């Protein structure tokens, strides 16, 4: 009984176990690793990736793959930057950054659900358009001082030793968890993603559900982008695409934890920690800068391999 209990924990929370092991190992290897300050640095660096992962999680559960989300971050940020050069106030810049995310989500939903284009194609196309927006808005140049110093200071403040944006990310994660796991809407998203045919015959509004998954993804990207602007104060046109691979690695890793075999919020949150600790630790030990991309790519492939039915069942046995 007790043995089973631990076995279950081990299988269900394998990545949490790995995270703790990594944490312990790096603490021994480097004295500067296990400090609140260093943890804060690690997590601040993962906040935008975290928003990306939470955003792409929802369409993935609904059976859609939104590739445009990385570019969407760039587009949101540059729209915010452009608006600030037009003289909008700080708070309205942040609001419109968020709104841009929602509108781009509606656009993706329109292409995929209304026009019925497969999501990998429609979001690849819309992603390219968003990339052009982020480059074209300011002629490819970056914009500094988008947000005034006071507000940047506000968002760089710490609460209980950790940056405010980390707490906001956690709050959004909790909300998404509630939405997906504890509301009828969440049950329907899972059902539509697993079998849209069964869901349709059961009377679920599958088009609405798929549409909402894109809009929610856009909204979360909008929040992430607004926080990025508020914390850094500057807007760089190249920001978006760099989040694609680490973000996908994070969300794909989530299927190894909590709800094995399906994308989920607790798994995503643990993955954010795990990858953050991993990359920070090996950097402290002096690993080369290009290692991160290699690891991200390997994770994507490894997770897809693990997600094959037979190996997944073997895990659950």
């Amino acid at each position, binding site marked *: 009984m007790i043995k089973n209990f631990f076995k279950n924990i081990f299988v269900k929370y394998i990545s949490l176990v790995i995270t703790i092991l990594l944490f312990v190992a790096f603490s021994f290897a480097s004295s500067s690793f296990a400090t609140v300050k260093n943890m804060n640095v690690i997590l601040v660096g993962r906040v935008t990736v975290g928003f990306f992962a939470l955003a792409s999680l929802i369409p993935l559960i609904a059976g859609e793959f939104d590739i445009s989300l990385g570019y969407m971050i760039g587009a949101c940020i540059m729209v915010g930057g452009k608006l600030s050069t037009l003289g909008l106030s700080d708070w309205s810049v942040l609001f419109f950054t968020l709104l841009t995310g929602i509108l781009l989500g509606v656009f993706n939903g329109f292409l995929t659900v209304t026009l019925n284009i497969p999501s990998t194609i429609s979001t690849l196309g819309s992603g390219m358009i968003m990339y052009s927006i982020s480059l074209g808005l300011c002629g490819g140049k970056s914009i500094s001082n988008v947000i005034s110093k006071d507000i940047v200071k506000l968002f760089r403040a710490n609460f209980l030793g950790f940056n405010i944006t980390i707490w906001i990310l956690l709050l959004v994660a909790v909300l998404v968890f509630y939405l997906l796991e*504890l*509301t*009828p809407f969440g*049950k*329907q998203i*899972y*059902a539509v993603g*697993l*079998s849209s*045919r*069964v*869901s*349709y*015959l*059961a*009377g*679920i*509004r599958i088009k609405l559900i798929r549409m909402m998954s894109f809009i929610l993804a856009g909204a979360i990207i909008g929040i992430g982008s607004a926080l990025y602007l508020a914390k850094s104060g500057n807007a760089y046109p190249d920001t978006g695409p760099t989040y694609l691979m680490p973000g996908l690695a994070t969300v794909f890793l989530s299927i190894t934890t909590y709800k094995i*075999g*399906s994308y989920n919020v607790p798994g995503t949150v643990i993955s954010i920690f795990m990858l953050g600790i991993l990359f920070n630790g090996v950097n402290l030990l002096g690993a080369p800068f290009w290692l991160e991309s290699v690891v991200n790519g390997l994770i994507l492939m490894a997770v897809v391999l693990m997600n094959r039915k037979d190996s997944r069942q073997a895990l659950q046995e």
Partner: protein
Amino acid sequence: MAVQVKNISVSFPGVKALQNVSMEFKPGQIHAVVGANGSGKSTLVKVLTGVYKPDSNCGSEIIIGDVSTKSIDSPIIASSMGIRVVHQESPLVKTFTVGECVALFEGYPKRNGKIDWKALNKNVKDLFRIYDINVDPDLLTEDLTASERNMIAMAIAMGRDEKLKKTKVLILDEADASIPEAEAEKFLVHVRKIADMGIPVIMVTHRMKSVMKFCDDVFVLNDGKLVYQGLISETSEDLLVSKMMKQDDSESKANAQAKKYTLGNLWDALNIKAPESTNNEVLSMTDVYAENIDGLTFSVKQGEILGIIGIKDSGVVELPKILGGELRISKGSYKINGKEVSLKATPRSIHQSGLSLLPCDRPVNSSIMPLTLKDNVLLPNEFRFWHRSTLSKNVMKMVTDIFDVIPGHDINMMFGKFSGGNQQKAILAKWLLSCPSVFVLDDPTYGVDPASRMRIFEKIREAAEKKVAIIIFSTEPEQLANVCSRIIALRNGKVAGELKGDELTREAIARWCYI
């Protein structure tokens, strides 16, 4: 040269698909193989085409011309032995021309490394001349009639020259099932010509009319056993149908242990009122047209259990989809609870107007295997259970008790781990949960074990007593005799007959379904 199978038995875990079957197919004759669903017809075809092997210890022997073997190990070997098959599914690619489709199987003739279209056209015309097919190779296959497509499929299967010389037997595996009767006859005239070349033809079919008109002799399979063989001239449709019918499926004492809960308890717990009594029809269709449905008129009253039967192209396949809102009607009036159903109905709007449909083909249409039992049962009704975990726990406890879902204690087990019968009982519960005023069941007992089938029928009767109007479609129509209060038979998209009271016998139903 004759083709023979001797002592063929095929077993799957828990099922004997064929038991000690021996048959002989003579050159120049068309042999019909008939039987109800699950009688072993397609297993026999798969043994002959190398898909299944007979049980190793049954002493099987397959004789094709002068070759004798214990089993045929693969479709490629079957083909090299001269066994040709035309399947129900067409081998033709819709967007290709006839010539290109033939080339997929025979290869393209080449000249200077390029495709020689002239030679291809000539090859195709030569091929078609053998089988007396008059079709232009440049036509797109989607522009052909169904019988032309079947003839070409047959020509491709048989081939010409060397391939044709090697042909020892032609098998038609329900090749005529998806085409209308008149078209099928045109096709069968061509089949006769092939038999006349001295090739034995095996025709697996559901159509008794075609059997009586085109075949020389007939084999009837029933539950994996060969129960009848004889010359067509010495038999009759009625005799064949009586042989095909399943022996009475032990109308046994379905373990009548008392249940703790009833459907009424379930609806009370959910605060759903059972339908109010009315003498009016709760569902009616008047002069409805859609796809194969051609001017259909019928109606159902509260508490009635109506069975709808018919052969494949009678409209019986489309009707449940039309009732459930998946297919739309093009003309006519369709009313649920006296209210006209919009021409733009969807499954959702139909559900809201009080009709629930249990669709056929459970794995595809009604169950989500990676979700839990609970999530599957509560799927269309999650809003009732939001933030009410005690209610959902109680409801699941009642559901597993009422419908005998086993194992019922673990409602968070993956749905895919339950057996087919238990899945189907759970899906039945899922739809009855919302207490529809009309409940349509499309093939509710397909692939379900006998005990679960009894339980399903029992619950259908209980729902009918609670004033739910029931409509049942089934691919094993004889079973409907046990449960229905009235049966209508469709033919050519219209109601062609009605069975009530004493007329409602298994024999009468079978006659409407197989003839």
